[in-house]
């Protein structure tokens, strides 16, 4: 069994090496990079957040909780992912970074977060009840991980190996919902409560930028970044 495993690993490693060179992101020093910034807003009043039905662990999860799908102020929408669709070389990022993701009062905090493929999601349980954090990826929402978190404040680190929006749920508390948006590169961010965002150190060029919200959908916008300049990107969702 052990011998077979090592042979397998050798084969896998060489396959991975080959795979990693194709279409990979190259980390370089970006000098005089530009910025993409702007505001993602919503035409009219934001849709109302539905009430969540808390079916268990009410002492911890509370009652009368509303969902966090539509958050924002001043016309802006929070938790919208703004990410460059594809870019071959750009700024460096911390490969070993651990993106915090917490189960707190039976909600995922943060609700939406971005990461680079290969970085680890640090899943934590701040509640005294059992959560199992169940991650799904791909179009068919295939299970990526299903990790039990019986103990409080013990962070479990799992590498994010699939691209795109990763849906995070909890089997034990079916209303819990969160997202990790994974890109090949670090040029992605999440809008603040007023809808504003900023992506810096972008090499000059023309890019397609993806704007993604869990309920409002996904759009693509073209942006041209000049060296040292700021490209404005505003977009308004309408329901």
């Amino acid at each position: 069994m052990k011998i077979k495993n090592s042979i397998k690993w050798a084969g896998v490693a060489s396959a991975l090496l080959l795979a990693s060179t194709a279409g990979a992101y190259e980390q370089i020093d970006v000098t005089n990079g530009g910025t993409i910034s702007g505001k993602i807003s919503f035409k009219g009043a934001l849709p109302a957040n539905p009430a969540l039905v808390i079916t268990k662990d009410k002492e911890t999860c509370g009652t009368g909780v509303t969902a966090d799908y539509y958050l924002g102020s001043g016309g802006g929408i929070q938790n919208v992912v703004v990410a460059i669709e594809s870019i071959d070389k750009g700024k460096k990022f911390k490969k070993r970074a651990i993106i915090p993701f917490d189960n707190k009062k039976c909600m995922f905090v943060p609700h939406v977060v971005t990461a680079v493929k290969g970085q680890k999601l640090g899943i934590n349980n701040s509640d005294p009840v059992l959560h199992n954090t169940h991650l799904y990826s791909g179009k068919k929402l295939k299970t990526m991980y299903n990790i039990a978190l019986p103990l409080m404040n013990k962070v479990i680190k799992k590498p994010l190996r699939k691209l795109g929006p990763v849906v995070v749920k909890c089997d034990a508390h079916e209303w819990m919902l969160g997202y990790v948006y994974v890109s090949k590169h670090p040029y992605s961010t999440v809008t603040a409560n007023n809808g504003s965002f900023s992506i810096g150190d972008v090499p000059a060029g023309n890019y397609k930028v993806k704007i993604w919200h869990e309920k409002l959908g996904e759009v693509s916008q073209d942006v041209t970044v000049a060296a040292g300049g700021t490209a404005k990107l505003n977009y308004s969702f309408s329901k």
Partner: protein
Amino acid sequence: MNKQKSFLQSLSVAVALTMVAGSSSGVIAAEKKAKAKTAPLAITVSPYKGRPKENAKNIAAGKRIYDNACIYCHGTTGKGDGPVAFYLSRDTAPRPRDLTSGIFKFRSTGSGELPMDEDIFRTITRGVKGYMPGFQGLSVSDRWKVVYYVKSFNPDFKGGEFETIKMVGGPVQSNGVSINKGYKVYQKFKCWECHGGGGLGNGKKAPDLKDDWGFPLPPRDLSRLSSFKNGTAPEDMYRTIMAGFDGGAMPSYADFFEGEEKNVWHLINYIRSLSE
């Protein structure tokens, strides 16, 4: 004439009752048999003897066997939509596995990982209690050919990373001390929240649990050892706890037992004690 009738009537009822009693004792006998076998692979020959090469010819041979033995449940394209699939747990899980999904329940690999070839071989050999027959009627070589064909349903099997779960240590003697330690683990790791205090599958989280396809899939009643689908041996339970059941709600506990694998064996002893 009437006396004869009533005698024969009561005789047939007696026969009926004996039959029913006999069938339930057959279940008890099966449980005893299951306990006696502690080897993870409950077959009499080594799985590697007669293992053919994984090549196109054997995959084609595996397809021929699959088309005669497996399509009724797993479907011609492996999606788990065969003509018989609907009747198995009509509105509840489990349906026959969608072999194209890459989500497999019985593995010795990490959460979210594909199974190893040996895991698929084991499942084909043993079946899944209550739902899938065990195919010990197929030769070892034939079963491997089917394994290779099954792998061809999902391209991720090629050059995939396999984070395997190492079996650290082995079953420990089941005595009061071990069972007590296992009980403490059961409490600390909150198994009872789903499986319930006595392991009856009636924990507070139990009612809404669903599988990845949206079908209700309640937690196992741990007091019925013979119904464990991954197998009844301690090694089988080790895999369940550490790898979790992908496609279902049972998560992997591998991260929490890292460095303390002995506790898994104590936990297993405790769980096995629930069915005595």
